[in-house]
């Protein structure tokens, strides 16, 4: 692997790992607070899966010569994180949590599906391993989306639509182009964010429309970019502080 390909691969892995970690942490905030008991357990379990994906991806980075997963997850500065803004947003309304869940996990499903063909074998293997989990995450999200859309009440439709309108620019920020698109494609590691976005739209647009939501013309929306280059929303730093508070008390503790 050339140095350029390696840098491209690491950038991709940091994007994915940081997305999974921050998204998993945000969703874990609903543990004990989700609207009904069964849903609480389901949403917490999905959050755990995401932290598992983050761990697996940080392990791939460790294997490439980076520090161990705990160091990567708990000691980096905000500017070193490569997550998109979508996963950083706090959610006080469960409608926002569910709509983000759908928008994010359809992107995850398509990203891992593309990576099953990656020439970087450890990543292709991971993509095959998590396929079933992400299929379930998408099933959970799409089921709620329909139930609270045209199968739901006026209130549920209104709250979910408001969540969609608020989140769409952030969701498009998932696909912020990488400076390494060319290297990723030429090495056969990943076909790129633009192709991923097209596949995501092919899934998300019909689902949202059939569930009764209004979608603006996608090209009129200004995507929330910056996260992939270390420029984050005001919400990430407080999240990192809360997430790392126990680790920072004693970084050398054995758990």
């Amino acid at each position: 692997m050339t140095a350029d390909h390696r840098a491209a691969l690491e950038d991709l892995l940091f994007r994915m790992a940081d997305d999974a970690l921050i998204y998993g942490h945000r969703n874990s905030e609903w543990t004990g607070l989700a609207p009904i008991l069964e849903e609480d357990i389901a949403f917490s379990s999905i959050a755990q899966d995401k932290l598992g994906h983050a761990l697996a991806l940080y392990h791939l980075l460790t294997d490439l010569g980076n520090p161990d997963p705990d160091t990567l997850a708990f000691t980096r500065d905000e500017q070193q994180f490569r997550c998109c803004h979508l996963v950083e947003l706090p959610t006080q309304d469960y409608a926002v949590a569910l709509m983000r869940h759908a928008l994010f996990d359809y992107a995850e499903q398509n990203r891992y599906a593309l990576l099953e063909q990656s020439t970087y074998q450890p990543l292709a293997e991971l993509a095959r391993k998590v396929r079933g989990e992400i299929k379930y995450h998408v099933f959970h999200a799409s089921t709620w989306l329909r139930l609270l859309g045209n199968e739901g009440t006026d209130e549920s439709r209104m709250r979910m639509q408001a969540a969609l309108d608020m989140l769409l620019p952030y969701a498009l920020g998932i696909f912020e182009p990488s400076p390494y698109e060319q290297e990723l494609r030429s090495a056969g590691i990943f076909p790129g964010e633009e192709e991923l976005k097209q596949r995501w739209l092919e899934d998300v647009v019909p689902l949202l429309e059939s569930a009764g939501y209004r979608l603006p013309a996608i090209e009129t929306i200004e995507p929330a970019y910056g996260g992939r280059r270390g420029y984050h929303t005001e919400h990430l730093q407080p999240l990192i502080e809360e997430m790392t508070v126990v680790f920072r008390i004693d970084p050398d503790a054995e758990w």
Partner: protein
Amino acid sequence: MSRTVTLQSLDPRVTRLEIPAEQQPFEGVPEGSHLQTFEVFHQAKSGARHIHVGSIHAPNAELAMVFAKEQYARRSQCVNLWVVKTSEIITFAPEDADLFATTPDKDYRDASGYKVMQKILAWKQRTEQQQSQQSQ
């Protein structure tokens, strides 16, 4: 409703909810807002029977599948689940338990009532004798 004074908890997630510090009187659950229940049957291996493992609340059949997976298939091995609306289960009434009251007395229906073990042992002995004669 004033939101100026909110509940401060050691758990930051609770603090973020901005729950009013003054407790509002509980007004009860609106009529008809309870979720229906579903019964869950778990299959551990392909070809094995599905075994009833418990029930769940869910707003519809699809979410019943989701919740069943979480409650009953997130730890041990599982290849499939059946989810059945509790109201769809056909059952005897509890007061009809007397239908079954005398069944434990009918031990002549137990498989153990058949005295076959002696026959099996005699057959085994015969075949073993024949085999040893043939090998000699």
